[in-house]
């Protein structure tokens, strides 16, 4: 005798059950993912572009006489007007040119390096000769929240602004001072308490990557 209750006791039911359940949930997830994918992608791109713009904003503001904040809130128009993506072959990494009235005034590079727990990525703005940092933003990292994770914080990244980073194409040595102290020399940087390795990793990443960029550029120039 076949009836509905006995079917659920058959050995085939568990197999079918898991199959149906998987199909239903995987289906729902797939539809959800596909539906929200463009939105997620767009938001990631916008966040990225806004970061570039914020790094370039100060240099642009000093030339144009506009407020840096006004430039940032004027995204996407200001991004289109002032930022141009450079050919990736030139620097072997993503690079952007900050332009005012068509003439380049600064570069923004997408650099990567190793932190304490994993890789991290940052956007670095430099002067045209690559010798001076104009800004830093760590946009992807997997450091300890509350310790190394603080490399994203404003007080840490803003101290890089205006620091000499290269001497021709060799990186400048930095001296790390405790978080609570003031830096007195341009070669000093405040490190994060409890995150010595991560703080140093950020500095080394920028120095190494920029030295490489400078080197490749001088070789090309020859």
């Amino acid at each position, binding site marked *: 005798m076949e009836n509905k209750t006995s079917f*659920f006791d058959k050995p085939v*039911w*568990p197999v079918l*059950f*898991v199959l149906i*359940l*998987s199909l239903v*949930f*995987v289906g*729902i*997830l797939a539809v*959800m*993912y596909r539906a*929200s994918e463009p*939105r*997620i992608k767009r*938001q*990631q791109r916008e*966040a990225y572009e806004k970061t570039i713009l914020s790094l370039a904003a100060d240099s642009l503001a000093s030339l144009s006489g506009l407020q840096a904040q006004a430039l940032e809130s004027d995204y996407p128009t200001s991004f289109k007007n002032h930022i141009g993506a450079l050919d990736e072959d030139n620097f072997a990494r993503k690079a952007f040119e900050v332009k005012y009235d068509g003439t380049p005034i600064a570069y923004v590079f997408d650099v990567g390096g190793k932190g304490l727990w994993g890789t991290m990525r940052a956007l670095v703005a430099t002067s045209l000769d690559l010798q001076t940092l104009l800004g830093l933003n760590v946009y992807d990292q*997997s450091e300890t*929240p*509350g*310790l190394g994770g603080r490399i994203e914080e404003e007080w840490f990244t803003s101290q890089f602004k205006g620091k000499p980073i290269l001497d021709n194409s060799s990186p400048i040595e930095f001296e790390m001072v405790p978080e609570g102290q003031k830096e007195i020399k341009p070669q000093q940087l405040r490190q994060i*308490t*409890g995150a010595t390795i991560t703080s140093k990793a950020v500095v080394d990443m920028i120095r190494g990557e920029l030295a490489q960029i400078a080197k490749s550029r001088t070789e090309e120039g020859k």
Partner: protein
Amino acid sequence: MTRKQIFINSAFTENAVWKQILGICSSLAVTNLMLNSLIMGMGVTFALALSCLTVSLIREYTPRSVRMIAQTLIMAAYVIMVDILLKAFLPQVSKQLGPYVGLIITNCILMGRLEAFASKNPPLDSVIDGIGAGFGYTLVLLLISFVRELFGFGTLFGFRILGSWWTNWSIMVMAPSAFFLLALLIWIVNNKYYKVV
């Protein structure tokens, strides 16, 4: 049990952390900032309530031999849904949470409530039980992170509470303090409310 009793039972009397000692891993990991704790607690509560509902709805048809696979699958699906929704509509929060969202899947509280309650009880009761357990968990996270953030950073939810005279206790930010505080909490609660006869 009435529904109110179910809630009180799963949130306080049988609290997942201080009574069942479940979810310890995440209680140690995410409690150095109150905001992280709150978002983590909300994520767990949301995923748990929905998983409880689903598991309870299909409990009559679930073969015993594959029930755990089914529960894990349902949990994982809801956690991924939370992740996608956060990424699409609250990118800021999603960035804050980072790896924690995925970790909800491995939280023992979910599996525990699904197996112990939702697989044997009607849907509405199960949802209430899930919300209760999530609430109890969030409460513990907030209690621990309150102490850790206050002494470790001098702030609460990112707002400065203690003035600049305050010297941050680095130990509170690091993992050991979570062990001390969690143990202290479990000790106090058990001493006060659960007398071993």
